[in-house]
């Protein structure tokens, strides 16, 4: 989709470039959030670094610690026709702004009979593995995906990060982009400037005939590496990267599984009532009778995120479990 180039960028750069390009292209784009200005260091994860210097503090607005007001301000500005990009430093803090996001951003277009869209983007970071414990690591994308009116995006590579954030900013509906704290400094090929990746479309990250592994975000890269290894053993894994969780690209998922007749779903969020449930359910419901083996979900444990690294590494989804599930299904 996005043209690869020799240049490599980190996720942090990717998000930063997307914001920069969007702000350069359109005066209605502005950024707000805690510590986002250069005076404050350009954001906790440096994603907004340089922007206030380039575009001024009127368009790059450092806020107080006020998550409700941050999202609410984005809602109001979006209703007025701006394209605000609000940073909620960590996803667990989005719990404080869900009234604005769910009762307002997601519904104002509908409740106004189509008059006032809410073209805001919320960027937020999360993920386990950094030793931040129970209140700074949750993946809550399933909540947002349960809300009609929101779009939910989880990028798996720097190029996707840039292209999906650009699409989110210029989308006319509220989008939430979920970034991963442990991936900001990972690198990948940079896309050409301006390349947007369409929302609502999954991506066949690797074609394969034997089994479909459906993933998004961090596990995608690990699954691709696993697929390479398994190819050596003659197992051809098709990797479907959802990219957008909602609206879900059911068609791409079902077409893939219809071909391979086997599916494993991998995500970082806890399993119970997670995104994997919806995908597994749709596969089961739509491809009943065509499946050669049961769908398997591999997710993190059904617990809060523990602090001790000894436990945190066991909390996370285990790639060896993905491997066993694939081998078992392909036996």
């Amino acid at each position: 989709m996005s043209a690869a180039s020799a240049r490599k960028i980190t996720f942090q750069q990717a998000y930063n470039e997307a914001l920069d390009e969007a702000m350069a292209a359109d005066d209605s784009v502005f950024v707000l959030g805690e510590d986002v200005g250069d005076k404050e260091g350009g954001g906790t994860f440096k994603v907004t670094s340089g922007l206030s210097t380039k575009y001024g503090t009127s368009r790059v607005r450092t806020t107080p610690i006020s998550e409700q007001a941050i999202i609410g301000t984005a809602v109001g500005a979006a209703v007025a026709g701006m394209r605000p990009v609000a940073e909620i430093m960590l996803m667990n803090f989005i719990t404080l702004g869900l009234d604005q996001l769910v009762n307002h951003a997601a519904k104002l277009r509908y409740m106004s009979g189509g008059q006032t869209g809410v073209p805001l983007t919320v960027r937020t970071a999360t993920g386990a593995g950094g030793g931040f414990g129970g209140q700074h690591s949750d993946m809550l994308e399933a909540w947002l995906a349960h809300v009609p009116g929101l779009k939910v995006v989880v990028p798996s590579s720097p190029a996707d990060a840039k292209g999906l954030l650009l699409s989110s900013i210029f989308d006319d509906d509220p989008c939430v982009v979920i970034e991963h704290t442990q991936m900001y400094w990972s690198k990948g090929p940079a896309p050409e400037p301006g390349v947007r990746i369409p929302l609502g479309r999954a991506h066949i990250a690797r074609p394969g005939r034997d089994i479909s592994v459906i993933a998004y975000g961090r596990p995608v890269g690990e699954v691709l590496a696993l697929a390479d290894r398994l190819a050596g053993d003659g197992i051809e894994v098709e990797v479907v990267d959802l990219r957008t969780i909602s609206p879900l690209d059911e068609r791409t998922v079902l077409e893939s599984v219809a071909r391979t007749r086997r599916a494993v779903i991998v995500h970082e969020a806890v399993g119970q009532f997670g995104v994997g449930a919806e995908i597994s359910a749709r596969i089961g419901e739509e491809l009943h009778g065509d499946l050669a083996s049961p769908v398997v979900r591999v997710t993190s444990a059904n617990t809060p995120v523990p602090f001790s690294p000894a436990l945190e590494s066991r909390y996370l989804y285990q790639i060896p479990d993905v491997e066993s599930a694939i081998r078992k299904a392909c036996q």
Partner: protein
Amino acid sequence: MADSDRTSLLSVYRTAALIKAADEKLRGLLTSGELAVAYYSPRGQEVLAAATSAHLDAQDYLVTTYRGIHDQIAKGAPLDLLFAEIFGRVTGTCKGKGGPMHVTHPSTGVMVTTGIVGSGLPIAVGLATSSSIRGDGRVTVVCFGDGASNIGAFHEALNLAAVWKLPVVFVCQNNLYAESTRYADGTSAARIADRAVGYGIPGERVDGNDAAATLDVVGRAVARARAGEGPTLVEAVTYRFMGHYFGDPGAYMDADEYAAALARDPVPALRARLIADGVADEATLADIEAEATAKVEAAAAFAADSPLPGVAELTSDVYREAVYHEEVPA
């Protein structure tokens, strides 16, 4: 009294009379059973709403609540469309999809009506932020109740508006009740206006039943906002003559307090004042009232005659463009 003040007061009365007639009509329809919706009467808060919007143009922004028809009418939202929305008709402001708690009418600046207590304040801050960035000169007014002053969003919104010096006026319509909870049982501040101290902004308490005083206080707040001097917290003290919702007998309201408030009913008070001050005579006021009644009757008829939304409306407007996983249930 300056001529402009006389004109303003008369114009406030015209708006207040329209609000009062609309409210009475709706309560009549609810009583007769011709209409069955959740309805939050603004009875007692007509003058306050009229005096507030008297300072605003159509391009200024308003954010209000479920108890919002007075604010919406005062801001200029067309009565026919308001009634049709309350009736759940496709001709309503929001095609019947929002309902009375969620009226939106951007061309008259009615940007958001929310059913969540206090949530309008951060949204108003966002509207004002857009004006601040664009330098479009618009002022945002957000109306909310005394009960709303105890929720977190109030605090975050006032702080942010103060730090950013935004062109927004926070108008607290203190009607002394939050549902059935009395002011002092939920609100620790002796006066809500005192809370402005914590944000380093002006806080003004005014008798919301006094049209001239309210015109004056809100006028100064709007002027400050328009001049780039930042937000103001206005507390307009009033009274809620009806129960919280239509059908609430209001058993928890004190009878003496109620009687005393009724003696200060702002609509007849303004009427009497206009006559006493020689601003208008009985005939002029009667004409204004008759005009109000006629408009209201026409709006009710328009609403009643309008069609309901068709089933395709169920799934449209969820997103700007339809996405294929959205399907009408069979």
